[in-house]
């Protein structure tokens, strides 16, 4: 063992840090996805079950761009969220806008149906196995930090998603545009009376939330393979993340997302059998102790 390597409970720091990094990456995706869900829920009062499918569509858009157009990762990072976001806005205009006066549950059922349609179509054409997506050349390789090897791409994913999350938080909590959004969440009728086009704001919000999911999908493409069911497994975990954090606070979603990713990573080191269930167990414990969620307000 080299310098800087130490052991905790018989586990080398090397293994621990690798899993911690993997946990942070998963946490980035949890944060981006739960942030999108929270923004959409705030404006539309709909839980977007199609979020996982839209994340998958983001990854597939990146795959198509590279395969058929020859455009690489950096272009995909912009084009995929915009494309999928516009598709989201079409979905909002075509389907979701009719549900705002109904019970919230119908929104969940409709978006669940949409998720089935999207996933089914992709499965039909691309099967259930994953397709590889090449990492951008500028991000291959890694840094030897002495105590661990840090792959460049993974560092990029963590830093960039943190940047996107914090920018979103800043826009919503600290800018004029964000204040309109928060006002429309609280009382749409009043905001409309002030001459702001709330329906258009709702459409754009949905598009933005969906674009966040697609962005996460592009970032996930080089790490996990691109596959039709990559979203459906993830979205259920993200639902648990949302229950734990509560959808009341933007910063809460970000903190909970990253935090749970890290906890999941650590579980992989100390008790690997439980790594797929640890977030659900935490959800159950949080429900027992703080039913409203860590950052939630009691509705």
């Amino acid at each position, binding site marked *: 063992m080299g310098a800087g390597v130490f052991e905790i409970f018989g586990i080398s720091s090397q293994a621990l840090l690798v899993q911690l990094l993997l946990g942070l990456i998963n946490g980035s995706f949890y944060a981006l996805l739960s942030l999108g869900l929270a923004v959409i*829920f705030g404006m539309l009062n709909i*839980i977007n079950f199609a979020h996982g499918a839209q994340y998958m569509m983001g990854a597939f858009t990146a795959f198509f761009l590279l395969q058929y157009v020859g455009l690489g990762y950096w272009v995909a990072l912009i084009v995929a969220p915009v494309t999928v976001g516009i598709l989201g806005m079409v979905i909002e205009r075509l*389907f979701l806008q*009719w*549900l705002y006066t*109904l019970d*919230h*549950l*119908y929104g*969940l*059922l*409709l978006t*669940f*149906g*949409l*998720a*089935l*349609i*999207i*996933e*089914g*179509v992709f*499965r*039909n054409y691309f099967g259930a196995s994953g397709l590889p997506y090449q990492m951008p050349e500028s991000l291959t390789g890694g840094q030897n930090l002495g105590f661990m090897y840090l792959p460049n791409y993974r560092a990029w994913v963590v830093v960039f998603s943190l940047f996107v999350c914090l920018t979103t938080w800043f826009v919503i909590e600290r800018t004029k545009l964000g204040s309109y959004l928060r006002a429309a969440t609280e009382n749409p009728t009043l905001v409309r009376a002030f001459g702001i086009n709330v329906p258009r704001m709702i459409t754009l919000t949905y598009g933005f939330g969906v674009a966040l999911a697609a962005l996460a999908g592009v970032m996930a493409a080089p790490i996990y393979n691109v596959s039709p069911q990559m979203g*459906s497994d993830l979205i*259920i*975990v993200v*639902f*648990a993340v*949302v*229950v734990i954090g509560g959808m009341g606070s933007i910063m809460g979603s970000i903190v909970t997302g990253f935090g749970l990713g890290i906890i999941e990573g650590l579980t992989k080191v100390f008790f690997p*059998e439980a790594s*797929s*269930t640890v977030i*659900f*167990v935490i*959800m*159950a414990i949080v*429900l*027992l102790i703080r*039913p*409203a969620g860590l950052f939630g307000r009691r*509705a």
Partner: protein
Amino acid sequence: MLQRVDPATLATDRTRSRAEPIAFAIMVALLVIAPFFAYPQFLMQALCFALFACAFNLLIGYGGLLSFGHALYFGWASYIAAHLAKVGAISFPVWYWSHAWIWVTIPLPPLSPELAILGGMLAGALLGLIAGSLAIRRQGIYFAMITLALAQMMYFFALQAKFTGGEDGIQGVPRGKLFGLVDLTGQTSMYVTTLVIFLAGFLLIYRIIHSPFGEVLKAIRENEARAISLGYKTDRYKLVAFVLSATLAGLAGATKAIVLQIASLTDVNWPMSGEVVLMALVGGLGTVFGPVAGAFFIVTMQNYLAQAGQWVIVIQGVIFVACVLLFRRGIIGELANVLRIRL
């Protein structure tokens, strides 16, 4: 303090329609003659799903609670029933005081089908009690997400546990002899048994819906705050409804394990939770007969489109979207609306 109103006095004759007994008679008649026209295997499968959908509908249709994880009770009950009927012996780890897990085995012989089904049903009830007491801590959309997440957790347990057989499931479950007397290997005896189980479950749900308890449940669905202000402990009502629904879903799952002689991961995974929502939605949420019609509709569709592969899922998605946007009342709900009766 306000005098609590006895719900029995609220349940006037209007809530009981004359059409329901007639429709029930028609349904029983159809199910009795059905085996002469359709494959019994298909009918039995549809009956199990119909009971499952009715159990689910008890929660959403009458309590306003959308459980998105009902595969948990259906699937786990079918695993338990299949295990009891095929192997019998139960082993589980116990925390021994001197810092060690020890495996305790209850040496049971393979059980007869009625005991296996009872065991599955109890498993459904127990799981419903645990998941329900967690889920009722939050309302509305969170309730749906919690039930889904808990079901996914138990799906991972089913994937890892030894006795479930992982990807293979538990195959070749013997149908055995009912009460040690009636051989269920024949399709006729199995069909009659399944039909009796279905009708018993259906009538129980009908009785629950029209009981004072059911009336309180409907009050909670319409306006929970008001029900609380009238002095009802709504959490207790919701939990009892949840456990009843999970128990009956367990009965359906356990019966399915005996009928189809298999318990597999499909039955505990989230698409199954979605499927039962779809059945109730297609038939009509909050109608007595809707889930039965919906279950027969969806199972028939799946049988006819078995060759279509993934397109079945796409079609299910389209039906979801169409039902939510255009036919929120469902088949039976629309029919009742046209005929101006309650079904």
